[in-house]
């Protein structure tokens, strides 16, 4: 207990002596960890959006009006037997009509038009995939190909009874691309800042050791172990990076409340990250902060303590 007390006293006096530099190190750790957390939140948000979009509509297989009930059953079986397919739900012409009526309930002109022509809406299978990246398999199984007819791309399917297969590959690709660019960009900045944080903390430790070189010299002379000399500095680095981590976690909650919650009110059709999502990345930030301190400690004190 007494020893811990000694360590903490030495750490506190070190932080006080190194005030400005310690603050710089802390701020850098804060920015680095904040960006790191932000990258994780962005990743989480986009994974929510992707789950939402692709989870509700993946692949839709539209059917011709001439298909017989037995052929429909066979086709459903064929779709469900595909390794990429999790389920294939049948939507009849009537159901499609009802759905359209519901979707456009507040558009009377459209409804009037629809009443006489609901027949044009095709029946379909809504296919849920095990992995959204595997939609090409469905298209291939239905023997559909994109063909250029009179200057427009038209899909032609060889499988009897199949009109066309609509996939959401383009949307998915775009979402993934945005996710990766944002995530990579923020992570890249975060890593540069993490490096800077390590360097600055290592520097404060080194300055602290330099300021206390006489004390350290005496400690070595009277037989203090290297760990006894190092631990107060390690704690100092840890305190600096953990304070930075605490500030970063608070700042991420602020971003969530001030930015994301406002977007949530305005853009209601998308899912948004919740407090629990922010909370779940807090341990990762604390782990990163601890790593920063350990690396900074081993770099900062490597040369100084050769016996």
């Amino acid at each position, binding site marked *: 207990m007494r020893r811990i007390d000694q360590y903490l006293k030495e750490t506190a006096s070190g932080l006080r002596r190194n005030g400005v530099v310690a603050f710089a190190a802390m701020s850098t750790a804060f920015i680095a960890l904040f960006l790191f957390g932000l990258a994780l939140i962005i990743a989480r948000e986009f994974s929510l959006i992707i789950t939402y979009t692709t989870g509700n509509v993946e692949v839709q297989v539209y059917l011709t009006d001439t298909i017989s009930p037995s052929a429909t059953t066979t086709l459903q079986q064929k779709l469900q037997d595909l390794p990429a397919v999790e389920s294939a739900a049948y939507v009849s012409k009537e159901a499609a009509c009802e759905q359209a009526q519901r979707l456009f309930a507040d558009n009377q002109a459209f409804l009037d038009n629809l009443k006489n022509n609901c027949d044009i809406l095709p029946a379909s299978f809504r296919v849920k995939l095990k992995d959204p990246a595997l939609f090409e398999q469905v298209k291939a199984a239905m023997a559909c190909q994109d063909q250029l007819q009179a200057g427009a791309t038209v899909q032609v399917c060889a499988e009897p009874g199949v009109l066309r297969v609509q996939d959401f590959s383009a949307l998915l690709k775009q979402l993934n691309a945005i996710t990766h660019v944002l995530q990579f960009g923020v992570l890249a900045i975060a890593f540069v800042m993490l490096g800077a944080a390590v360097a600055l903390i290592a520097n404060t430790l080194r300055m602290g050791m330099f300021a206390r070189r006489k004390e350290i010299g*005496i400690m070595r002379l*009277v*037989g*203090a172990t290297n760990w*006894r000399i190092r631990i107060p500095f390690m704690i100092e680095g840890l305190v600096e990076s953990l304070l930075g981590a605490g500030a970063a976690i608070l700042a991420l909650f602020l971003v969530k409340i001030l930015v994301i919650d406002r977007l949530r009110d305005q853009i209601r059709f998308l899912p948004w990250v919740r407090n629990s999502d922010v909370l779940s990345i807090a341990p990762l930030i604390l782990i990163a902060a601890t790593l920063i301190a350990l690396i900074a400690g081993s770099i900062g004190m490597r040369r100084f303590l050769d*016996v």
Partner: protein
Amino acid sequence: MISLQHVTKTYKNGVTALEDVSVEIEKGEFVFVVGQSGSGKSTLIRLLMKEEEASKGSVYVAGKHLAKISTWKVPYLRRNIGTVFQDYKLLTDKTVFENVAFALEVIGKPKHVLDQRVPEILDYVGLGDKLNNFPDELSGGEQQRVSIARACVNRPLVLLADEPTGNLDPNTSVDIMRLLDKVNRIGTTVVMATHDQAIVDAMRKRVIELDKGHVIRDQSRGVYA
């Protein structure tokens, strides 16, 4: 207690500070190491506390072959060796008591040991009434007494002193020598590097004279030259 066998020390810059030095020092001896600046006195002291490694030959201190002590065990060796320097090496922001207590604190001695031993040793060196003074408030001789107290508070087997009277006037030097003699009489082996002729002549102890890294004289009850 201390044994050097054919020890040569060559520094990285090619300077040979000691060459084929062999010395035996028994437990409880008081030994002066004399010689001009650059004769190798300080190198000898630094070898004994494992601040430097011998390039050739073996150094034994307190029964330990220094070259064979692993790095992490060096601190434990140093707990058996007290060291005193010309510049005292006191911490100016700590009181006399704290300076001495520091030596016990950093090797993990509990508070009750500090509270018992520190006033005891300060009393022994004649500073029982200066516990709460800062080093700046003391004379040079008193500061050196604090440093001797710090070196002895953990009851070392060996006391190494490198020019301990180098900054002191003759009268104060005599006082410091009396104190080192007192420390020696309670069984501590004392090795003192010096070029203070008057002191060596007055003490009539064993004298090892170095010249350009060689032992040119080893004489019991000797004089400086």
